[in-house]
């Protein structure tokens, strides 16, 4: 069953075309990597999928719901890690996550589990601004999986993660439908059986793992 159905997704920033009629269909549990140079439209596509941005034209359904008319209902369903992590620097890792537990309506007991998953148990009480960039990235990922979303949208989550990025992302992505944007072709190939390649906002096709490696 298709979880994400995007048709003709187009987005203009003023006079600049950022995304040009991109189609995307994702089945439940499927992982897809979005590849492309800087400015190819990866972040725009991911922000549209995360319902953070309305497409100028095109339609998007997530879990059978219109992603823009019913985006509030969909937000239980989505987890998003963007370029900017959106953490509160003066709060500890635990306090950051407990705050988002209240907003997501999930019990605070989830915090221990997600900190364990992302390997931040030992840093639970350190302030976010005292964490290294890689640890902050892990905290951003922890926040995105706090409510156990079924669709996970990851925009270059491997940035600053270090050597075990692939292992961590494999763990985080297990059992979820995932859209992953990255510049790392090897990582994309390892984590995602399908790849969507964007160039100047246009889809230049999808490929299987084998083709990307080639």
């Amino acid at each position, binding site marked *: 069953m298709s979880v994400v159905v995007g048709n003709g997704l187009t987005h203009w920033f003023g006079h600049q075309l950022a995304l040009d009629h991109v189609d995307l269909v994702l089945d439940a549990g499927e992982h897809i990597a979005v590849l492309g140079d800087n400015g190819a439209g990866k972040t725009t596509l991911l922000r549209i999928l995360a319902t953070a941005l309305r497409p100028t034209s095109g339609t998007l359904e997530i879990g059978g719901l219109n992603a823009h008319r019913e985006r509030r209902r969909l*937000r239980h369903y989505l987890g998003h890690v963007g370029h900017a992590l959106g953490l509160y*620097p003066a*709060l500890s890792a635990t306090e950051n996550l407990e705050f988002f537990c209240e907003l997501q309506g999930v019990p605070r007991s989830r915090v221990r589990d997600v900190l364990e998953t992302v390997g931040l148990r030992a840093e639970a009480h350190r302030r976010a601004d005292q964490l290294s960039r890689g640890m902050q990235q892990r905290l951003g990922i922890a926040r995105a999986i706090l409510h156990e979303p079924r669709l996970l949208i990851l925009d270059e989550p491997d940035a600053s993660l270090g050597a075990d990025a692939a292992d961590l992302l494999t763990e985080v992505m297990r059992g979820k439908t995932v859209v992953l944007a990255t510049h790392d072709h090897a990582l994309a190939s390892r984590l995602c059986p399908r790849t969507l390649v964007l160039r100047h906002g246009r889809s230049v096709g999808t490929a299987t793992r084998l083709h990307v490696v080639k």
Partner: protein
Amino acid sequence: MNPFRVAIAVAGKDLRSEWRTRELVPALAQFIVLALLIANFGFQIDSRNANTIVPGVLWLALIFAGLVAFGRTFAAEREQASLEAMLLTPASPVAIFAGKAIAACALLVACEAVMLPALALFFGTPVGADVVFAVLLATIGMAALGCLFAALVARIRARELLLPLLTLPLWIPFIVAGGQAVQTAMGLSGSYEQAIGLLIDLDILFVVLTSLCARFVLDE
């Protein structure tokens, strides 16, 4: 999801962040004391005219402190991209807005806790419970309006310029009613009860209106 819990969580988060960083309140308190000091030297205030001039000084200091306090509420969230993270949760934007307004209101009340004793100290005017009550009532409505416009302009580059332009005209009724309440509390002629009644009406009106508008300002 309980919107009251969300509002309390947002307000608690803002107040905890401010308590740890002490970015806003000490600076605002200094600003207020400096404003009062300048007024003390700038106007020829003595026991004969203090009750006429001091209410004006009070509202001027409060307005400019309020503009800074409310401007920071959403600007900081935008800078660290945390507003989008909040809005991508299922929490109601109205509850998020209410939490931000409660926190901004509390910060301004903390500044007022410095301003009112300083006012009595510099100008020798009586600052009783009736003055405090009038100032607190005005703060509620001013916080609701200030936060709404702060949310509106937070994504605009010239936000420091736009916020006063949008907010000040709508704060005028609070200054008129609040000024009258403080003047009568300080012994000038007029009806204190009438001014307080007007402040309560304005609070109800603007809290309801801003709550209705918050969803569109934050969500779109």
